[in-house]
């Protein structure tokens, strides 16, 4: 089954038609990757300001002129600075934000793996009746437990 799944993926990857994007689709795509200079913390795509609509039209215009995504992004960055990119660059000041999540997952994973192995390779404790391990049941809890046990016995 695993082999079938991989083969399907491979087949799909090889046969997927290369879809040419329309200028409007490219502008939509880019507007999702650009922070709006007119709405704080919001992508250009999501910003309702009329100026944001004008900027989207401008991007669509660049696309109609034949500029590709990288060229348009560079042009916007030259105009507005690196903070225009919603996706920080994977070089320079932006590198850590990309690395640290993977480091967190890997460190957590390795630590958990090590702990699980360590815990599961130890012998079980000799005694299980340390004072802290003892659970004191109240009268009502004891009564409920007895009733439940009685019901279970009856059911079985």
């Amino acid at each position: 089954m695993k082999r079938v799944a991989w083969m399907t993926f491979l087949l799909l990857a090889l046969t997927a038609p290369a879809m040419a994007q329309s200028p409007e689709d490219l502008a939509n795509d880019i507007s999702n990757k650009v922070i709006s200079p007119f709405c704080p913390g919001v992508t250009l795509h999501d910003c309702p300001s009329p100026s944001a609509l004008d900027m989207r039209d401008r991007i669509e215009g660049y696309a109609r002129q034949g500029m590709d995504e990288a060229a348009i992004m560079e042009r916007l960055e030259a105009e507005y600075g690196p903070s225009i990119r919603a996706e920080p660059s994977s070089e320079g000041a932006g590198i850590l934000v990309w690395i640290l999540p993977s480091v967190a997952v890997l460190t957590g994973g390795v630590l958990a793996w090590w702990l699980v192995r360590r815990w599961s390779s130890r012998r079980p404790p000799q005694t299980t009746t340390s004072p802290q391990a003892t659970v004191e049941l109240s009268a009502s809890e004891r009564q409920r437990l007895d009733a439940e046990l009685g019901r279970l016995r009856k059911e079985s």
Partner: protein
Amino acid sequence: MSPVRSLAGLGRPSLLVALLFSLIAIVAFIAAGRSGRRDLSEAGKRALYATFGFTALATISLITALLAHDFSLSYVANYTSRSLSVPYTISALWGGMEGSLLFWTTLLTGFSALAIARAPARSSRLVGGAGAVLMGIAGFFLFMVAFPGNPFAQVAGDVPIDGNGLNPLLQSPGMIIHPPLLYTGFVGFSIPFAFAIGALFTKRLDDSWFTATRQWTLFAWTALSVGIVLGGAWAYTELGWGGYWAWDPVENASFMPWLTATAFLHSVVIQEKRRMLKVWNVTLIVLTYAFAVFGTFLTRSGLLSSIHTFSEGPIGKYFLPFLALLLIGGLGMVAYRLDALRSENQLDALISRESAFIANNVLFVAAAFTVLLGTIYPIIAEVFSGIRLSVGPPFYNAIFTPIGLAIIGLTGIGPLISWRRMSKGTFWRMIRVPLAAGGLTVLILGLGGLSSPGALLSFALCVFTATAIVGEFMRGSRVYRRRDNVGAFTALNRTIARNRRRYGGYIVHLGVLLIVIGFAGNAFKVERRADMAPGDTLDIAAYTLTYEGARAATTPEKEITEAQIAVGRGDDDLGTIRPQRNLHLAQGQWQSEVAIRTNPIEDLYVVVTGFDTDGSAVIRTFVNPLTWWIWAGAAVMLAGMLVIMSGRAPVIATAAQRAPAKKQPAVAG
């Protein structure tokens, strides 16, 4: 003339008295925590009830001032107007910074009173410790609303005849419910946090702290979950950009405590069943509450820009030391009591449900860390490199997709593995049917033309996990069908009723899968924008939209311009939809009202972003596949949580359960 008389004069004195009582309660509870004396604990309780009473009185005073249009209060003048309807006038209580803090404080003191009143009478020390922490937090918030964030401050100069009104974006039914639910979630986590710290403080480190607060944790998590989803629904229907989640700093602020609380809800089960992960669980609840307070800080500090933030006020600077105190104090207490928090058991085997839960915790906490990092990274980068960066949706989507899919996979694997240990052979027997179902999904959807690898993997993992969960229900039901000779529905009912926690959890997971299916649909979103004159048509996906013209109307609050758009699909006439572009008169602010035609397959989402004087309109249209399933999934999650909360308190691990493992049956709970 409003029929309600403003009682604003009572507001601030009530807050000062409440602050005084909270200080008395702190002293009494600390003394009770140290001595274990019941009379001191009772004194603390009475002071706590009084704190709540006076805080509630202050809130009632502000509500009367809002309803009476008492514009002598700058809060009332800033956030309401005479034309505002009564529900939105009341919702202005949490529409501004000062009022929302008062609302938060009222919830906190109310929840504290309920939690302490319901805590087991026998544990005076624990109640003392928890009460002192709760009243310490309440004291901080009461100080904030009594001094720097006072909602009863008077306007400078002449009293205005009318107020500025509520932000039009907040004038939505969702906004009446969404903020209170988020606050309920945030504040609700203060109860398990306080009991955990109280337990550390008084060295009452058995299971009583989390059994006493189990319902609170579930309640807070449910409220926060529903609040987050309602926030998404509000964004979807009000903001007009065709989406529901923008990875905005304030959205992130609500998501971080949700992630760590979700990790806690899973890992605490290991503590209940195996008495392990005690340090981890206390740490998680400290982090969860710190994240909740961090969210409050973010929205009020002016540190980060967001459409959700309140205007920059004087109170942000008080939150940072408070947050530092919570974190340093909480984690410091954990470190101080490390010896007493040692696990009483070991893991029996690598392949066990415990291991799956631990892996789940790693992913949830890494996810929370990622959101925190992305939220604060622009500030860190600017401080250290002087370069302004943005961290937006593409970053989060890139990081979250693999983490989310791994969590979905684990959600499917978890129920298939028994506690303690399971042989590889049994594991394979359990997993092969869900695996086959997932593989088949890839095959069918792939051959059907679905080429997005991310969407394929999402759908396949959802089917894998759903098959695993449905298998659990079927195995459980089969026992009752055979034993009691009853129908499938009755057997299913009995299965769920017998173990509400477990099966309620599975229902929650099924809800999550539906939500993930909704998210995966986003990969096939289509968007078109057009400047349309009357009679023009626009084709999008299988729809044809014909703009028929605009209609204008005026109400006391706004000037409405409504576009009439006929919708067709092939030869079918699907009727007319009417998106609006409105001018809110009090604020002079334009706002679009979206028109949505929704069904389980796709949403047709239309928004008018402007009208020209010649009658033409700028129409933005989206076809959003499967979005309906997000809201349906949230409803299923809520149903699951209600099933869990209707269940009994967990039975703490007994000596027999703590004993070394014997071979477990394949289908262990």
